[in-house]
């Protein structure tokens, strides 16, 4: 199975890192994966996005036309990419920043106040990693163990001091889905 994911937001929200985290975890599980960043004149506060494919088979096109999943971490992302989600797809919407009412009825919305959730955690905490944790727990596209392993690898060396905050953020996203599943039961 192949899953195409677009992650989009402001530069500085950790958009590229979130995509890269999924890719690293996919590699740990022996899956094929591709990651393309938007690159160039982007800067903190400007638009940033990346395209991630995860598949058990060979990935032909790394370029995503219609995505299975969109992470919209700000309003411009929702406006730009909402129509590019496949019917039956999923949009993870950061409702801390996006107040607009979603327009599509043929996709599933996962609304999360990511910034607020990060604020409530002991600092530092990362909204992007919370989003990844929630997404993976919800879809089971990867195991949360591989994500933790990936975070360890990605923060090895100079960024070691950021590992615990990343793991805490990841757990926060995972627990959000677990607890909301209980509520709906």
């Amino acid at each position, binding site marked *: 199975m192949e899953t195409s994911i677009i992650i989009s937001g402001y530069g500085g929200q950790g958009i590229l890192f979130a995509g*890269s985290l999924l*890719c*690293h975890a*996919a*590699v740990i599980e*022996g899956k*094929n*994966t*591709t*990651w*393309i*960043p938007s*690159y*160039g*004149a982007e800067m903190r506060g400007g638009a940033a996005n990346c395209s991630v494919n995860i598949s058990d088979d060979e990935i*032909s*096109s*790394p*370029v995503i*036309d*219609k995505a299975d999943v969109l992470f919209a971490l700000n309003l411009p992302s929702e406006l730009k990419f909402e129509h590019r989600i496949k019917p039956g797809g999923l949009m993870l919407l950061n409702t801390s920043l996006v107040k607009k009412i979603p327009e599509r009825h043929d996709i599933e919305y996962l609304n999360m106040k990511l910034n607020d959730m990060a604020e409530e955690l002991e600092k530092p905490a990362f909204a992007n990693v919370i989003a990844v944790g929630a997404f993976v727990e919800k879809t089971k596209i990867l195991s949360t163990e591989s994500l933790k392993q990936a975070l360890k690898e990605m923060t090895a060396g100079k960024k070691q001091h950021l590992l615990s905050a990343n793991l805490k953020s990841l757990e926060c996203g995972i627990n959000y889905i677990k607890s909301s599943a209980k509520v709906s039961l």
Partner: protein
Amino acid sequence: MAKVLWKGNQAIAQAAINAGCQCYFGYPITPQSEIGEYMGDKLPLLGRTFITAESELASISMVIGAGTTGTKAMTSSSSCGIALMQEAISAMCCAEVPGVIVSVMRGGPGLGNIASAQGDYFQAVRGGGNGDYKTIVLSPATIQEAIDLMYRAFHLSLKYRNPVMLLADGILGQMMEPVEFGEYPYKDDDVSKWALSGAKERPPRNLVSLHMPDGELEKISDRIFEKYRIVAEKEMLVDKFMTDDAELIITAFGTTARIAKSAVKKARKAGMKVGLFRPVMLSPFPEKELFETAKTARMILDIELNQGQMLQDVKASVFGACPVEFLGRSGGGLLTDTQMLEKITALYNKIGVRV
């Protein structure tokens, strides 16, 4: 060995290091600056040479200098930077100096933009230098292939004493994918017969691109073109996907070919007999291979991110065996597999299906 996640530009640089590249000379330009950045980090630690040159002219000239000594050397740049190197590339072909050039294409003409494009096919394959010459051009579609072709580029460059260009594009340079490096798989040719290694205890040599005596240049021209004939015969690389029974064959190179492969798979699912012919070596062009493949097809669709450049080589190779159509987009815009599939479907309906 387990695969590891690498960014295209950095993988290209690491592959060069594995291939034994002793010298990197370059000037930064998007979308390939990470190659120089990576080399700047690693080469000095290995006791090898890294120089940020003052310009692209200087970079390629330094490659010539290193190449004349039989040293494995490279430069990398993008579209408008490669434009500045053309005179030197012609000189390298004439003086038979090895060297590897990585070209990571961006939008053009002019300074263009920094998006991924394929408008430098002519620049790579035809070249803008003077005289009769060819650069050997290799075109990867995945990061794994970029690594394998970097190894091959260094090997071919020394073997045939000719510049070899790796023609990639912005997406390939910027994307990440799991890869395996493996070991440099080639046994390189002995350079001691021609390299300028100091004339102690042997007669002096020179490697020049000026040949004034009557008839001398003609001999050289014949000799280097004999090399290109041998390269075409012995070193040719093509990738064919589902072409055997295909009614419609797509020709494409690089990242576009990869997206086209996805379109071919979708077309097959829809019951259309479509295949993909991807030249991996773009120069010399796989004329024979394409002609043989085209003979059994009803139509060729050439897809490129430009206004139709490889199209000319495709048409010349197909030589009327079947009609050749074109789908292109330039200026940095991408073609998605959906757009390709639309064109494929329209053409497929036009040719009808053989009973």
